[in-house]
């Protein structure tokens, strides 16, 4: 404004100087105006020069077309032709491109897991497979096998325990920032780009299914360049909550979850409630979900809490192997 209106009695000028009405008579004021005016002119000059250089650069770049056309698939599934010289490596955004998809889930699916307790020998292969892919330390469990004895008269058994992906999830209810959410396919996920680390979800979860990155996650330095994938929750981030994801990334590829595939003993069935079919991760046998649960008296953990888990358990009957006591604590300290 000041540069465009050099006359000091211009109304705009008056307005600008309302704080110090004497300034317009002050010689210092007028030198400052001149100074600003000069800067303004210099600025216009620089901008014009830059624009000229830039358009020249574009013109030069255009000449460098190779004529070699590549056919590419865009994110929304369209085929496009691009000159090979135009193809550039994508800038790192820090957030996965699948953020929106990761929040919605896979349409038409209702994922469900059945854990057959009569088969679990505490091989802990599910645990290591899960920890490897999710960049977890040995004491950080998305999936943990617990040794349970309900009463002194009943036999102890091994119980793999992961997030129950409840249909009435107490964790999602209490989250203050929508960092943890329930998807249409039944999966409960955590977005560690959003998580503020208040740990209310951990306090609310009756299954102790959630873990926290108390310190810098395992091998964090090796993963700094990795884009965040909300369906895998890697790279893990210090100060945020992590949890079992039902291997949402694998389900998108039409594969079984990591833990389910890793089990050597046929403990896990995984599938789609809508199809009423679950597949055993070891034998790859597909059975009817409703029949499996009915024939084997399937049940849920802590159903009285009304959380409506999506993980079912088959009772630990007819076990043909010895039970080992719970081993205490992995040695590594966090």
């Amino acid at each position: 404004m000041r540069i465009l209106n050099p006359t000091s009695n211009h109304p705009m000028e008056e307005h600008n100087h309302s704080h110090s009405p004497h300034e317009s008579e002050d010689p210092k004021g007028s030198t400052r105006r001149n100074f600003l005016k000069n800067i303004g002119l210099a600025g216009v000059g620089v901008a014009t020069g830059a624009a000229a250089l830039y358009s020249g650069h574009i013109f030069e770049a255009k000449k460098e077309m190779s004529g070699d056309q590549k056919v590419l698939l865009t994110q929304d599934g369209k085929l496009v032709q691009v000159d090979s010289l135009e193809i550039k490596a994508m800038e790192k955004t820090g957030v996965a491109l699948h953020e929106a998809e990761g929040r919605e889930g896979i349409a038409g699916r209702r994922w469900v897991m059945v854990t057959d307790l009569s088969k679990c020998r505490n091989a802990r292969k599910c645990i290591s497979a899960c920890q490897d892919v999710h960049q977890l330390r040995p004491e950080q469990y998305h999936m943990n096998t617990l040794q349970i004895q309900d009463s002194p008269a009943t036999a102890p058994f091994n119980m793999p325990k992961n997030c129950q992906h409840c249909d009435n999830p107490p964790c999602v209810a209490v989250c203050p920032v929508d960092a943890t959410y329930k998807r249409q396919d039944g999966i409960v996920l955590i977005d560690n780009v959003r998580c503020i680390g208040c740990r209310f979800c951990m306090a609310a979860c009756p299954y102790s299914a959630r873990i926290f990155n108390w310190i810098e996650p395992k091998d964090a330095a090796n993963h700094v360049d990795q884009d965040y994938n909300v369906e895998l929750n890697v790279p893990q981030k210090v100060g945020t909550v992590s949890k079992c994801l039902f291997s949402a990334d694998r389900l998108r590829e039409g594969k079984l979850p990591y833990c389910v595939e890793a089990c050597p003993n046929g403990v896990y069935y995984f599938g789609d409630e809508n199809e009423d079919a679950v597949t055993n991760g070891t034998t790859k046998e597909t059975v009817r979900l409703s029949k499996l649960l009915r024939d084997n008296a399937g049940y849920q953990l802590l159903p009285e809490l009304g959380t409506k888990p999506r993980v079912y358990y088959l009772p630990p009957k007819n076990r043909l192997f010895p039970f080992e006591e719970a081993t205490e604590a992995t040695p590594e300290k966090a």
Partner: protein
Amino acid sequence: MTMDDNKLTFDKITSDLTHHIRINKGFLIWMGFLTVSLLVCLYAYSLQLSTGLGVAGIRDYVTWGLYLANFVFFVAASLIGMLISAVLGLIGMKWLTPITRIAETIAVAFAAVAGLVIVSDMGRPERLAYVFLYGRPQSPILWDVTVITTYFVLSLLLLFLPMIADMAIIHRKVSTLPSWLKPVYKVLSLNFTDQPEQNKIINRAIRILLILLIPAALSIHTVTSWLFAVTSRAGWDSTVFGPYFVSGAFVAGSAAVIIAMFFFRKNYKLQDYLTDVHFNNMGKVLATVSLVYLYFNINEFLVPGYKLKRADAIHLQELFAGKDALLFWAVQIGGLLLPILFMLFRRFRKPLPIMLISVAVLIAAWFKRYLIVIPTQEHPFLPIQHVPQNFVHYSPTLIEILISIAPFILVLIIITLISKFFPVIPLHETAREKGIDHIKFD
């Protein structure tokens, strides 16, 4: 009564209630000590910022530790402003006048710091703004943020409004002030000249604030209790948690007010204004709220103890006879039952004994929050297995303890500053009650 008849009296009240308003050596030493201590604690917090919450003893099972116990304690202590000023004030208890500002100062200090305490418990404090950007109104944390902010603003206004007249007096009559401070009082006094219209506006505003303060205060601690009560964990899954927390808050706050009264009376020589009667009455208030709290304690422990549902049984076993038993009984007997018994007798409601009782009550109140927050998490529904020992049993680290001390230092700094630069006892109100209807300003 005219001003001239009371000239001496008014001058005496003014000098009695404002003679501490000066920057002296003791004040500087005390503030220096607090500042250095705060810096040490802030260094500990910087370690937590750079390393992660892992520098504290909290882990995946006991995920809320000292910081959250501290938060509950600070919210609790801040509630006293509402009890003293609003509840007792509105039902017309005249003896309260010299105590109201102490109560409001404590309310403002603790409410302001409670907000900071909760930030120290965040894994990602730099994402604090997300609570406002992406806030889900379904989460009790949002309710807590809303009501604590509201309560803090109301309390701050309630501290400020009765001070307007006082600052007009200080600006004109107090000569011990450094010259650079005088204009501050002039600005803050908002040109108050003790006109009837001015007093009418202030009194009406105060009355509206007092009424608004009651639901706001009830909300802050009820909502804070819901952070626990909305979960299904044994020990938290309770329908009396709201009133249980609110009554406990009155106990902690009353004790804090009595301790503050004792020290202001001694250090600022206010024996003529904070008399034995005030300590006696505050002792009765503390005894009454302690009895209410005892009633809720009986409800909170007897009812689940009678049924002994599986998870409740484990929780109560730990509290009554297990790992936490010593602390539990020390808090319940030493911080609740014995104080109630003592306070039934007049001689224990004299200044020194009631102050000592209040110290015991306040310390117990802090440990009570610890017992509410931590033991519940040590026995979840499913067993804790295959994790390191420090995941199974919570023990706070030194860094965590230092970070937990910081808010106490901050509260002391705030209370010290307010009480040093403003009359601890409402000056204008006291003068009015002594029969001085109108103060003539030169």
